[in-house]
């Protein structure tokens, strides 16, 4: 179902990517001249203070936004220049998203929230059920499948969000401040889960955060300052 990244071709790549916004007569530069490459199976953290451009870069790499200048590609395809339909298909089939506020659909149960991502890909109901239960099991939440988000703790919600992002077996997970709404203990659990899934499945993780505990354990950290790459540090093998 899901096309994996081609070996040797970077999953994410930016070449001189910039993003500017117009605020009245003023042009605000969110990120400037970003060039980077992220290989399949990497666990990469985009770190930096608030306003450094982490989320903007994440949106560009995740196909949620288009660069004002330069190019952004996914598995070799220029997604900045691709059609809306192609970008929708990319996000649906090859990427998984995790948000700071979990962003679960409140009227759907944990099972249904995860199932929705599979439904989008056109999976038949029977197959959906098996895969959703497997995804919930992977994040340790199969026993909470019928609960709605408002009956789950913050950590459980983020696990459901992770299951939702993983259930269709994406090439990469794009997470924006995934632990910001969690206490330190729960955040550590979620982070451990990310690392385990990254290592076990080889799924690429691209995480924007200013959480020092994530930054401390990340194999590769790209620091942004004022919308530019200040450093790109690799700590041991990913």
């Amino acid at each position, binding site marked *: 179902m899901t096309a994996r990244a081609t070996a040797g071709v970077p999953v994410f790549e930016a070449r001189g990517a910039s993003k500017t916004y117009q605020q009245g007569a003023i042009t605000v530069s969110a990120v400037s001249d970003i060039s980077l490459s992220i290989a399949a199976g990497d666990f990469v953290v985009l770190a930096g203070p608030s306003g450094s451009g982490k989320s903007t870069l994440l949106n560009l790499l995740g196909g949620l936004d288009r660069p004002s200048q330069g190019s952004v590609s996914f598995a070799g395809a220029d997604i900045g220049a691709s059609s809306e339909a192609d970008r*929708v*298909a990319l996000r649906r089939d090859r990427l998984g998203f995790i948000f700071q506020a979990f*962003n679960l659909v*409140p*009227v759907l149960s944990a099972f*249904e929230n995860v*199932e929705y*991502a599979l439904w*989008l890909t056109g999976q038949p109901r029977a197959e959906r059920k098996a895969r959703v239960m497997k995804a919930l099991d992977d994040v340790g939440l199969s026993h909470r499948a019928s609960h709605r988000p408002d009956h789950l703790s913050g950590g459980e919600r983020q696990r459901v969000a992770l299951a939702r992002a993983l259930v269709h077996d994406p090439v990469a997970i794009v997470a924006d401040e995934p632990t910001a709404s969690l206490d330190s203990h729960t955040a550590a659990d979620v982070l451990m889960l990310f690392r385990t899934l990254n290592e076990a499945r080889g799924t690429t993780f691209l995480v924007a955060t200013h959480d020092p505990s994530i930054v401390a354990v990340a194999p590769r950290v790209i620091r942004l300052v004022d919308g530019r790459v200040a450093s790109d540090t690799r700590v041991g093998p990913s």
Partner: protein
Amino acid sequence: MLAALALRNLFRNRRRTMLSMVVIGVGVVSLLLTLGFIRYSFDGLSDAIIRGGLAHLEVAPASVGDGTGNPIIDRAGSPPAFHGWQAVRDRIESRADVQATSAAVQLAGVLLNGDRSMAFMGAAVEPARQRSMGIAVKLRAGEALPDDAPVAGDDRVLLGVDLARALHVEVGDSIVAMVGTAAGTLNAVDLTVAGIFTTGLQELDARMAQMHLATAQRLMGTDDVTSLLVGLKDRAATETVARAIREDVATITPALTVADWESRAPFYRQVRGLYIGIFVFLGTIIGLLVCLSASNTFQMSVLERVREFGTLLAMGTDRGQLARLVVLEAVWLGVIGGAIGSILAAIIAFTINSIGIQMPPPPAAVDPLTLLVLIKPTDFLYAIVFMVVLLAIATVPPILKILRLQVVEALSHV
């Protein structure tokens, strides 16, 4: 999955959804009750017209009449010209779908009571045959015309209530009727007032008189009639039978026309047009109210979920799917609100029909009207479909908003 999600979304803000359902329900109740009352009025009026003397069909020489539509007025000035009507009657009455036929003469002249005189329009009938066709005279005083043809000197007449009042006559009084004969001369006959009746319409009550066919033929010096009235077993078959009789009498000369009751009842057509106009007006007002109210509901609902829509878009939901989601919410709202309104309408209609509320007589009518509501099962379906269509239209503004939504902006929406 989208349908289930739409249904659940509907109950996120229960108070707002309930309010919308109340608006839809009240709209459906109003439409169904109005439609039910109008249908009852149409049914009652058409039945009154048919049984009031027009019958389902009329067969008459094509050369008679000036096309005004109402045979009573239309042909009253012309002498009877239907030759050989008995043979035609036999052919028509041999049909299984025909209840009975009655020959009729329409005439016009002057009625005299001493020094008082009034112009009248008369219908000469065969009382027994008319009765078997279900045509009944609404007597206010006296008795109906005798079934048998009266002998000369024992001729009787029924007068419209206002005509009798204008002539200052009562049941049992004698009056003189003066009409033009078939030969073009004047003839007069003494008539005894057997009864006083109402047509249900004030205009006609001031002009109408009714006598036996034999009396009119004697008065006009002819064996011919103006037309044959045909009563059917089933009103719904009127068009079919009319077509069959038309084919059956097509070879007869001089040519005959076969007209159904509706084409001979301009009053019915006017009332029908008026009622349909009222219903369309009411439907438009209700439609606008529901549409505006629902549009506001959907706008609010979409505004509250911008961030969620952003999430769904980020996950790879396309904008068409989001638009379908909103339309499905409208469909659910229309179906549930429409169903609630339909149930309420059925209960109210049943209650109204059980009580039997008396209404004042309609314009130009004499008798009070019992308020009844006739709702067909298909009406409920149409009302629900109408609401669903209205609500689907009301989703256009929020859907346009969704189509313009930017994912990144939506995700940061607070």
